[in-house]
């Protein structure tokens, strides 16, 4: 485990971040850096740190803080109006030159490394709070796909910052009494994968919690169609121990998300007929995804909820990318409640307790 990055640099490349850098890079940013350290292929990018956020808020912070503190969470109308104004303020205020320059330089470097000027990127907020409820207000909705051009990236970074002042986010802080002075947010800027197929993986069964299987959902195009529930994906269950695909359900996939032909954002469209009933990933790709999932799970030491994509352009063997990985939470709680068999005095005492007339309910 390496020491966290202590500097206050406004921009940090993924390669310089690890799991302990949540305070500066946010949860999402720290996780992407950590995945890279674990040897997992993730699309390259950088984080606009919480230090950059604080710099940018600088002179605004006092005024904004005062205005938020004066709000009543019960007064919905005024709250909506005030927060809209605050967001407008945050989005339109030009960031300090060092921050703007660092973001533009980071983007230029990323474009140069990819060999593509105006490289399309995803801009996502990355919350520092470990509180998943707060994180979901303050961050998860704020994902801007297929952004390109330095100025546009900068604009979207500011939009992410402004999202901290959404009605939901502010209401949440007011009700919890969270002081505005503790507020911080990082933003992830990451190269887009021109996804042929994408989807999600759980490193345990979402239905039964079984930790010996990996459940994988996949569909054509960008992952937002699967995550957003716009399509019924293909679904596979793979045994971790043997690698066997124990269940496969190929769905009729009618819709996909693709980059907007205008060059900005994404559009939803119909999947061409000839692709609809074809599996969106092949067995070899499933095997690679499963191998990666196992590595990530082992790296973190607990079951993971993973987003992934298979690139349209990268050659086989280099075309599978992880976009995100976070701990699975639903079954983790149930695990604690599950009955765990304890060892007996003699091994065959287990036989006695089982064949000794234990009568499960209904018998």
């Amino acid at each position, binding site marked *: 485990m390496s020491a966290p990055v202590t500097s206050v640099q406004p921009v940090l490349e993924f390669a310089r971040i690890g799991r302990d850098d949540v305070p500066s890079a946010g949860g999402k940013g720290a996780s992407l850096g950590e995945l890279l350290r674990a040897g997992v292929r993730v699309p390259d990018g950088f984080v606009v740190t919480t230090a950059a956020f604080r710099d940018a808020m600088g002179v605004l912070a006092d005024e904004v803080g005062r205005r938020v503190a004066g709000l009543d969470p019960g007064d919905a109308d005024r709250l909506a109006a005030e927060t809209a104004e605050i967001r407008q303020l945050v989005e339109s205020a030009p960031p300090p030159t060092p921050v703007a320059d660092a973001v533009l330089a980071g983007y230029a470097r990323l474009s140069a490394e990819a060999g593509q000027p105006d490289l399309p990127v995803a801009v996502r907020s990355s919350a520092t709070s470990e509180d998943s409820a707060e994180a979901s207000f303050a961050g998860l909705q704020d994902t801007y796909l297929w952004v390109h051009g330095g100025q546009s990236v900068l604009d979207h970074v500011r939009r992410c910052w402004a999202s901290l002042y959404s009605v939901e986010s502010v209401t949440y802080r007011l009700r919890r009494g969270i002081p505005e002075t503790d507020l911080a947010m990082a933003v992830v800027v990451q190269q887009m994968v021109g996804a042929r197929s994408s989807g999600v993986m759980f490193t345990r069964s979402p239905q039964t919690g079984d930790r010996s299987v990996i459940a994988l959902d996949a569909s054509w195009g960008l992952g937002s169609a699967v995550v957003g529930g716009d399509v019924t994906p293909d679904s596979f269950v793979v045994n971790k121990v043997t690698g*066997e695909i124990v269940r496969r359900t190929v769905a009729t996939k009618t819709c996909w998300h693709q980059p907007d032909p205008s060059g900005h954002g994404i559009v939803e469209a119909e999947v061409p007929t000839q692709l609809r009933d074809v599996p969106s990933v092949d067995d070899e790709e499933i095997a690679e995804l499963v191998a990666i999932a196992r590595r990530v799970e082992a790296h973190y030491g607990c079951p993971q909820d993973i987003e992934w994509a298979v690139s349209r352009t990268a050659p086989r063997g280099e075309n599978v990318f992880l976009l995100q990985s976070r701990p699975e939470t639903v079954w983790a709680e149930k695990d604690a409640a599950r009955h765990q068999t304890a060892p007996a005095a003699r091994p065959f005492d287990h036989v006695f307790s089982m064949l*000794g007339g234990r009568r499960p309910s209904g018998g």
Partner: protein
Amino acid sequence: MFQSAGERSFPLPSQIAAAAGAEGWESMYPYFTRFQPEDDQRFWFYNAMHFPEVIPAFDGITSEIPYTAIGANTARLFSFPTTMGIEYRILNGRVYITANAVTDPARIQERLTDFQERAGHYYANWDELYIGWQQRIEALIAEIEAVEVPRLQELDDLSVVTGARGYATNHLLRENFHRCVDLYSKMWHHHTEFLMLGYGAYVVFFEFCRNAFPEIGDQMVARMVAGMDVTMYQPDEELKKLAALAVELDLADLFVEGGEPAKVLAALGERGDAGARWLAALEEAKDPWFHVSVGDGFYHHHLSWSDDLTVPFAALPRYVEQIRGGADLTRPTKRLAEERERIAQEYRALLGGDEEKAAFDQMLGLCRQVFPYIESHKFYCEHWFTTRFFQKIRAFGGLLADRGVLAEAEDVFHLRHTEVEDALADVQLAWASGGTELGARHWQPIVDERKRIVAALTGWSPPPALGPVPEALNDPAVQMLWGVTDETVQTWLGGNELDEKVVRGYAASPGVVEGVARVLESVNEIGQIREGEVLVCAVTAPSWGPVFGKIAAAVSDIGGTMSHAAIVAREYGMPAVVGTGQATTRIRTGDRVRVDGDRGIVTILG
């Protein structure tokens, strides 16, 4: 425990009429196998796993005797707390069974105390007792092999007089026949002596795995537990050795696809010293390793390799070809053992905590301790001993045919064992009196009639179960004894709604393949199988293992996931669905089928 007969009910025994043309089938079996009026109140199911075919009159002994032994062990020796033994009945030539559960809590508690003392003694001393078991079973095999089928001559041997033996040879007809039956009974007691305790250890581990890994299949549990099972693989190993010897002695040209055993043997006889050496090696391998039955040891007509060389000789050409091509056919026991250990350790690593891991170690350890018995008892009991038993009975049939009582030796299997004793008494009397046996006039019409009845019964489709459905079959011991769970019953109940293109069975070996079906009526057709076909047959016995190398998948009417055939299929890495009950009647040679060994489903594609 049982719901009243209503919607959740199978046909009642009393509602089932004799199959057309098979009226009077009851006379083939003893009175105590017949359904009684009060049996309508109980739940019964067809034991398709052990008795997939119509039972000829003599073969009734293969249900009568095993059920005297298994019930004695669970009910009276080890005092299993929640179950006594199994009752069986015969209907239209098929065996239906039910278990007598113990449900009174006070009685269960009493039985549990005895169970702990008695079963505890066996578990605690397992390895030592198992060595004793092997000695006892080998002694029984030696005894059955030594039983003489008397030869009745014009005058008894002079030595009987000079040695003052005191009794004439006709006495030995009944004594020796009876010894065969007695030894067969003893063998079955020994067979079940360790079996239910062994299964108990397995079921406990299986339930544990199901709790920890809800989606785990029983195949995976079996893979963690299975040993190297040296005994049941040995016949196949002997074949590989013979194939290697054929190559070494430059006899490979004689082993070609479709060669009939008799012709191959004759050709070997003309190849001088090399041929003689190979034939000697064959004789050496035969005893005991060719005493594997092509079935599971419950029918006289499931012959062994030593009775009929068709199966081994169908496998030899392929082995010869592979060895000539430089292939190493040695069974990779080291790799298999490592793989078993890897799977077990990976599952263990996925468990919640150290307590649970310790319990896993205990249960897996116990399973592996008992498994050598579970794996190897079949070769000793159902194969080696039973092959010898049926050979002796066939020889008594030969004697009855020689004396004119029967038209041919095989007809003895159309008499019940008590009727065989009658026929032998007839011979004893005729030889003693200097008169003539009266059996020809009595038995031969009966045999003819029974052959006709067996043929008529063969066309009858047995319902999977009879009577009202029990509320829940949730007692592990009863499930273990029956081999049937709630899910099985639910599947049967839904049976009518199932797609007629779908045949369901046990998922015995994973993987999904499509191929052209080859339905084999009997093992004698095994030479017809072509590379890449899907084998469909009544029984996939372990002795068919050698042909597994040739086929893409196996489907059978009978068998369970713990059967040796399933274990062999897994080792060959070939999908298998067993215990379908009806694959051979629903699928035709030439049909394109998809075998889903993960889910136990065979789909007829056209």
